[in-house]
């Protein structure tokens, strides 16, 4: 990354406390994310990584500190920051196609245009055949494809992914990860991914921010330099990279430190 790259996200001294200040979830975090970077927040359960992401989305307010995306302070949720949730959030009363249209409808995109775009996005997430199905007829992986298409169809400047594949079985998660690589290559969106899956973070991210457990602070902030800026369409190519196994071992060591409270 060059130093003069546009900063997509600027987090300054953000702290989030609950219960009238008795519990600190996020403690004085500062970090910048340059444009088009895929940044993963990794850490043990309860480390505040999801809280941090929700503050980026504007779903929660920092107790102290400020968050700015593309020069604009975050004061609440907005379509400039698209979010994909771990829970299935496709609206059950809309078909897959109508779900993808929903966000564009909110933005006032005319019917014909949004339908065409929605079809394109369903194709992008390999779901064209299910365009007219309701979410109750779709598998978990397919529901997440709808959620991803719906979010990207709004063309957000920042993509926030909150453990989007956490509820999926291993094979589907793997398929989804490879699909995300395709999407990152085409869209080049600034992305923040929250995950506790170390392999997923290494595979998808350009950079990993590792959180300490309660209160959540940044333990380590490392670039995935061993990938030399490449993204691998197939996961096994990544596994074959020199340096991969060291990275994974390092992350697991940090995870153990945090879990065992060393």
């Amino acid at each position, binding site marked *: 990354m060059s130093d003069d790259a546009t900063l997509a996200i600027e987090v300054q001294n953000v702290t989030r406390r609950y219960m009238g200040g008795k519990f600190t979830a996020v403690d004085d975090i500062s970090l910048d994310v340059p444009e088009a970077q895929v940044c993963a927040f990794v850490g043990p359960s309860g480390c505040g990584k999801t809280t941090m992401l929700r503050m980026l989305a504007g*779903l929660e307010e920092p107790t102290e500190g400020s968050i700015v995306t593309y020069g604009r302070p975050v004061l609440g949720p*907005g379509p400039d*920051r698209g979010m994909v949730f771990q829970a299935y959030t496709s609206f059950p*009363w809309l078909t897959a196609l109508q779900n993808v249209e929903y966000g564009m409808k909110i933005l006032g995109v005319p019917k014909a245009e949004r339908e065409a775009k929605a079809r394109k996005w369903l194709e992008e997430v390999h779901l064209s055949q299910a365009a007219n199905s309701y979410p109750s007829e779709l598998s978990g992986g397919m529901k997440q494809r709808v959620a991803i298409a719906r979010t990207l169809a*709004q063309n957000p400047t920042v993509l926030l992914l909150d453990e989007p594949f956490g509820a999926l079985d291993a094979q589907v998660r793997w398929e989804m990860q490879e699909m995300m690589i395709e999407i990152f290559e085409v869209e080049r969106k600034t992305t923040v991914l929250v995950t506790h899956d170390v392999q997923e973070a290494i595979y998808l991210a350009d950079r990993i921010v590792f959180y300490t457990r309660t209160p959540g602070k940044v333990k380590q902030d490392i670039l995935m330099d061993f990938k030399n800026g490449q993204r691998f369409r197939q996961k096994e190519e990544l596994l074959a990279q020199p340096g991969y196994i060291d990275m994974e071992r390092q992350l697991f060591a940090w995870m153990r430190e945090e879990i065992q409270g060393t």
Partner: protein
Amino acid sequence: MAQATNPIRPEGAPSNTAGQGAGPRYDGRPAKQYLRLLTPVTSRQAAYYGVAGAFLFFLIWEAGHYLTPEGSQRFLPSPQIVVGTMVRLTVEKNYLADVGISLARVLISFFAACAIAVPLGVFMGCFANMRAFINPVFSGARYLPAASFIPLLLVWFGPTDTQKLALLFLGVIFFLVALILDNTEAVEKSLVEAALTMGASRSQIVMGVVVRAASPAIVDSMRNMIAVSWTYLVIEEIVAAQDGIGAVMMRAGRFLKVDIIMAGILTIGILGVLTDIAFRLLSYYLFPWNRKRPG
């Protein structure tokens, strides 16, 4: 081979066949079991069971009639006599007018209650401060017995239709509000958050997300509460009415005409079942996305 009838093991799964030494032997011919855990019935089977159950009910009724000593049989008329009485009342006594009046009382008061309870329940379900403001009074009011309002309403309105509608209204409104509040609060928070991150406005979320998501449950609550409306109707018409099914039954009671009383009970039962079916059909056609799918 017939369908697997083992409680858990599906057809074709490996079974503990003979020749495996100690332990209970499983000879591949499972015993017929009618009480099987975790075993759904098909809609056809459910229909058979339902018809059989109804048939048994009428059979016991019929038997009760014939087992009663001859002189007392008119106090337990047989099903045929009761149905015959319904027909006779309809032809000779303009019974359908009374049925229509009762039905109108239930429907008008019930939908008036819904017209208030649905918006109020949704409003409280969406905004916690409004819930804190309104709900204590409404939820406390559920413990006031609606029948105890009859004297008050009689003083206020006299034995008029207004009085009757008011009682039926009071009988269901507080419970409806409580149920619809629950239905609204049961909507997944993540749906609302997803809509917020897409930039939906507050009104777009309340009307377009929360109400849409809660509507099947709301219609279900209405279906359950209209049964309560029928209960209050009878109380009301027995106490203070000149017309309606309850009034017909009360008059019959004075002359010990048990067949008419039972015809009234049966009529209300039938109307109750019909309103229930109407709500189920409404739900089926309004919410195609919510239909239970096989498998």
